[in-house]
């Protein structure tokens, strides 16, 4: 089973107080910590587990700046056999469509039975690349996958619906699945492991290698253009409780009693 996993390097923003750049085109990223997109980490783990169970190869591919090599080294340390980077400056600013187009050009000549991506990226959250890529490749796809069971040329998969409900599907391979968080428990990757992966080659593909023109990728090749970013308007302002832990707790107790807490 030859598996290709598409990954993205993103800033960690979960518990960070974000600020906006003066040109209103992005958040201030200079002090942020970057890592593999959380969904992609689960996709990588799933690929490596399938390989460990039934054999085959895993190739990690990313579109991003030079820094994204670090993310690929992480994938190699997790168990990927090969890695490809699409780091041509002309690709920067690509939207989901242009990104999928570039990935399509890189992947279509490769051997694959299965392509995995994350459901979405934690930065722009479009949740489009997987579906677009599958459509371009002309292979079936399933999004929000929570279980994969390979049975020869078929895969039995579960996908997440809403409210705890899931559905089970049977899909012919080759196929593309977008992987949901929680599908597995991604292995720990040590700094030593990442260092060791430095020896492995990362194949670099430029726009001309992808047989594309610069007009087909980057902002020019994009369907969607970012006008500006801004802080969400505050719909309702929470009453902020201040003080030391004791004062805060006193006030919270009052509120809890007043609002029907049984104490």
């Amino acid at each position, binding site marked *: 089973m030859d598996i290709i996993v598409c990954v993205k390097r993103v800033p960690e923003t979960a*518990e960070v107080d974000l600020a906006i750049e003066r040109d209103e085109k992005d958040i201030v990223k200079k002090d942020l910590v970057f890592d593999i997109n959380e969904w992609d980490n689960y996709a990588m783990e799933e690929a490596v587990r399938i390989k460990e169970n039934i054999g085959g190869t895993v190739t990690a591919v990313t579109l991003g700046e030079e820094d994204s090599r670090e993310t690929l080294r992480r994938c190699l340390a997790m168990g990927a056999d090969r890695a490809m980077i699409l780091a041509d400056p002309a690709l920067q600013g690509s939207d989901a469509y242009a990104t999928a187009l570039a990935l399509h050009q890189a992947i279509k000549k490769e051997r694959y039975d299965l392509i995995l991506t994350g459901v979405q990226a934690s930065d722009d959250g479009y949740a489009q690349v997987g579906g677009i890529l599958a459509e371009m490749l002309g292979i079936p796809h399933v999004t929000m996958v929570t279980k994969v069971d390979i049975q020869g040329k078929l895969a039995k998969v579960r996908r997440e619906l809403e409210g705890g409900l899931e559905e089970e599907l049977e899909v012919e391979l080759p*196929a593309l699945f977008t992987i949901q968080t929680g599908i597995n428990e991604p292995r720990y990757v040590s700094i030593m492991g990442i260092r060791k992966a430095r020896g492995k080659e990362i194949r670099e593909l430029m726009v001309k290698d992808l047989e594309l023109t610069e007009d087909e990728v980057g902002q020019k090749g994009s369907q*969607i253009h970012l006008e500006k970013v*801004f802080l969400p308007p505050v719909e309702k302002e929470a009453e*902020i*409780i201040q003080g030391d832990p004791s004062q805060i707790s006193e006030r919270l107790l009052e509120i809890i009693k007043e609002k029907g807490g049984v104490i």
Partner: protein
Amino acid sequence: MGDVFVLAEHLRGELREVTFEMLNKGLKMTEDVGGELYAILLGHQVSHLAEQLKGWAHKVLLVDDPQLENFNSEPYQVVLSHLIKHRRPSLILIGHTSFGMDLAPNLAVELGFPLITDCIELRWEPAGLQATRQIYGGKINAQVSARESDGYLATVRVGSFSAEQGVRLTGEIETIASPLAEEIKYKRFIQYIEAAIAEVDITQAEIIVAVGRGIGEQENIAMVQELADALGGVVACSRPIVDKKWLPKERQVGTSGKTVKPKIYIALGISGAFQHVAGIKGAGTIIAINKDPKAPIFSVADYGIVDDLFKVIPVLKEKVEALKS
């Protein structure tokens, strides 16, 4: 020109609320440019749903086919692209749901239309479609525009528009012969899998203490459990905690978990992504503790504490216990 298609989303014989939210928004979008609103209903033996949609659109297009009985993006895409190529709407709205996310990107590529996903606001600009959407887990909003095109696709975030009916329309139902010639073969629906029966039913709890990513380590959940016990409540959580297997799925609050309606909801270290917040709309009072002053949870909470939850929780627990004894 200017017509809007809304894909009616239904599951097991019932229309989902996002359908009505999109129909309301779709009607406004047609009024802005002068077009008609179409509710698109694909399914099998769903005429009762078509009747329900009549009052919400200028026209209901119904395609009945056994292969459309359960949502499957493969036959749905075939039928929708057929309808769109013939009727040429300017805009197609699809829910940003599990169904919509499985369908919209592929359909957009087939049609050659730009697609904006997860929109919380949409408007027509002279150059085409513009939308507001959220990035970085709801902490930042982005205004985006699509390139010029004859048609656009957008997926709409659940809960972004009202589902309350304004004007009652008198749409007629037009039944269209299914364009599905042969059996769909690549992707087959097997069955629905229900959530496991819960040991603790958080949907009935009056007091919920919920934890998110900010709890840091699995061991810290014990401290939260103690607070919940002292308050006579239950512990629930947001998605990352279930993903890490620190708590079972039955404790998850949000779109892919449970919808809760406690008198008091205490959110600890939960940023407040919309998927989570959608599950606590019915809560009486929401108290949030988070280190990040811009965490989206503070715009739905009634009371907020911008602090380290580990400093506050033990003190609060002690005070609750002292009061009880």
